[in-house]
């Protein structure tokens, strides 16, 4: 009897250990983080990143529902909700309703949280941000200056020794204005660069968009600022759609192709018609 009880206890113990081990394998811990973006001092948004260590590697986790909060994690401070995409990111724009909380102090915190799912534990991430703004302007001789200021005791104060990327905004990426992509701010918070891209195609009026970036800064997040300048070469797009090209529609083939093709066809069929005429001549000779 005693032996049977011992066996039963051992079995239950083993089962508990197995189940807990199984549960551990099933559920992964989730790591959440937030990035802050301020685009051209106008649009502010937050991006949550969800990742988890699976098979020894960090992987981006999609389909995680996340909630964003400003200040602290309370229902009153909720500013938006989202679901992570295939890159593990979820984006939310900071709404006007968060204005009061935002204006409370020079520093602001954001919290992102996700509930536990079938495969992941609940997760939470925070971001402590110092309010800052980036400005871009131009001087004579095509000099570009970008100024970084942070809010200190209600006063915008220059920030020293922060890398600012100064570039020209193109369709799919930014193009450096000179050989160096980034410039450090001085004691006045100014980073300056010389524009060295002559004859760069702009819009129809030759306008280019200059852009300054502060990327992934621990204190200020991601900031950017833009300015349009007439430093480019004017470019007007001319559509090739209805021109005579090899890829054009019927009736719009290149003249050289038409000349070649039709002259070959006319020459060869001219010979054939001549030969058919010879058959007629042979008939006439035979009838004579």
């Amino acid at each position, binding site marked *: 009897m005693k032996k049977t009880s011992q066996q039963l206890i051992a079995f239950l113990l083993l089962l508990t250990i197995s189940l807990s081990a199984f549960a551990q394998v099933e559920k992964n811990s989730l790591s959440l983080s937030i990035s802050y973006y301020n685009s051209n001092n106008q649009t502010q948004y937050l991006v949550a990143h969800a990742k988890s260590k699976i098979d020894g590697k960090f992987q981006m986790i999609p389909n995680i529902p996340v909630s964003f909060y400003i200040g602290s994690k309370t229902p009153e401070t909720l500013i938006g909700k989202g679901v992570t995409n295939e890159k593990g990111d979820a984006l939310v724009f900071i709404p006007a309703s968060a204005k009061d909380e935002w204006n409370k102090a020079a520093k602001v915190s954001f919290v992102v949280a996700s509930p536990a799912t079938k495969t992941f534990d609940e997760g939470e991430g925070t971001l402590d941000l110092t309010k800052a703004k980036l400005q871009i302007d131009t001087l004579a001789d095509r000099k570009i200056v970008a100024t970084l200021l942070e809010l200190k005791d209600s006063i915008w104060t220059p920030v020293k020794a922060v890398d600012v990327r100064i570039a020209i905004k193109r369709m799919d990426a930014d193009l450096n204005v000179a050989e160096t992509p980034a410039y450090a701010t001085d004691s006045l918070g100014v980073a300056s660069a010389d524009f060295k891209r002559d004859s760069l195609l702009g819009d129809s009026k030759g306008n280019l968009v200059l852009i300054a970036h502060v990327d992934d800064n621990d204190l200020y997040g991601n900031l950017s600022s833009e300015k349009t300048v007439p430093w480019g070469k004017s470019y007007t797009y001319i559509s090739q759609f209805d021109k005579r090209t090899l890829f054009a529609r*019927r009736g719009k083939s290149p003249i050289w192709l038409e000349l070649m093709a039709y002259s070959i066809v006319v020459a060869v069929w001219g010979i054939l018609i001549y*030969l058919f005429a010879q058959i007629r001549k*042979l008939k006439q*000779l035979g009838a004579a």
Partner: protein
Amino acid sequence: MESLAKQKITEDLLPQKFGKPGKIWVGVLLGFCAIGIIAYCQQLSKGLVVTAMRDYVSWGIYISNFVFFVAISLVGSLITAVLRLSDVHWSTPLTRIAEIIAVSAITCASIIIVVDMGRPERFYNLFLHGRLQSPIVWDVIVITTYFFVSILLLYFPLLPDLAILTKYKERTGARLHKLYSFLGSFWKNTPSQIHIGERAINILSVTIIPIAFAIHTVTSWLFATTYRPGWDSTNFGAYFISGAFLVGAGGVVVAMFVFRKAYKLENYIKEEHFDKMGKVLVLLALLYLYFNVNEFLVPAFKMKKSEEEHLLGLFTGEFAMVFWFAITTAMIIPILILIFKKGRKPLPAFVAGVLVVIGSWFKRYLIVTPTLLHPFLPMQDVPENYKHYFPTWQEWVIAMGSLAGALLIITLFARIFPIIPIQETITETEQHEKD
């Protein structure tokens, strides 16, 4: 040849009625054609879904057949034009065989391309609304032109023979006599007619060579102007033309043997002809082998990632058996047979010719299908049958029907017209006797 009298040559070379084997042969061919037509009717009513062609393999054995027919049709220009212009006289008995192969092949090439169309009733739009920039339109123009040039090249040398045939009404029968009279009764063999006829043949011989090169180069461009593994080649025009001459010459050797046996033409198609055609075949097989080495060795040496799957599929993968079969039967074995004098006797030369023709058909299949199964972008989210291609019975039957149709045209032509030029043989014999 010297001892053969003019009368004997004429009587030997007059078209002969089918014997029992001939009737069976025609019956079999008609049977294949009929089954092919039935399958095509089914395809017409249900659409191309009855074939195994899907989104990826949209060109299956119909287009392989088309390329094969276009290739074999080039032999007309090789035997008739190139050898005539080179003042080679031994090929005289073979010219008509070559020309009728060319005409039948180009006819069936035109038919099979219509068969490949999902909506054949809209075919006329190619002529009305074709884009001149498209190689498909060039192909339509050049095939039509080549067809008429081949017909004329068949017709002009036939005129003196038609005049001879009209004199044998009792032997040929009333209906055929009517046909001969309609086609050539005006030929009186006068010096001015002979002059016009010879000039016309010379003009055609010069004209047909660039057209023949154009027809197969344009066919190769249908592939080479498309950016795909296996087709993205600057070698394709020359590669196709060399292959075309090879299969055409192989077809002529096969036809020579069959007509020689069936019509007892040993005095006209001699062992000498097999010997010389055998040498021509070796040269063409070596040339085609050279282009094949270029076509496969260079990309295999680089083994670009995007082409790797296609090339390995051919060398060691799912198409390896067909690939090595085609290379071996179309080139290597025929070279090994025909390089020896004994191999250029009629029977071994015939075997080599058959191997060339069969191997060449599979070679065309390999040019078309494996490439379509290996697009640059991976095949994703498609039904499993899109990823493989094996023709349905309808495709096989229609393809066989078109091959039977080509053979039927050649057979019926040989029944109606002399398969060896009578007048030219007489003239050459007389010339030979004079010399």
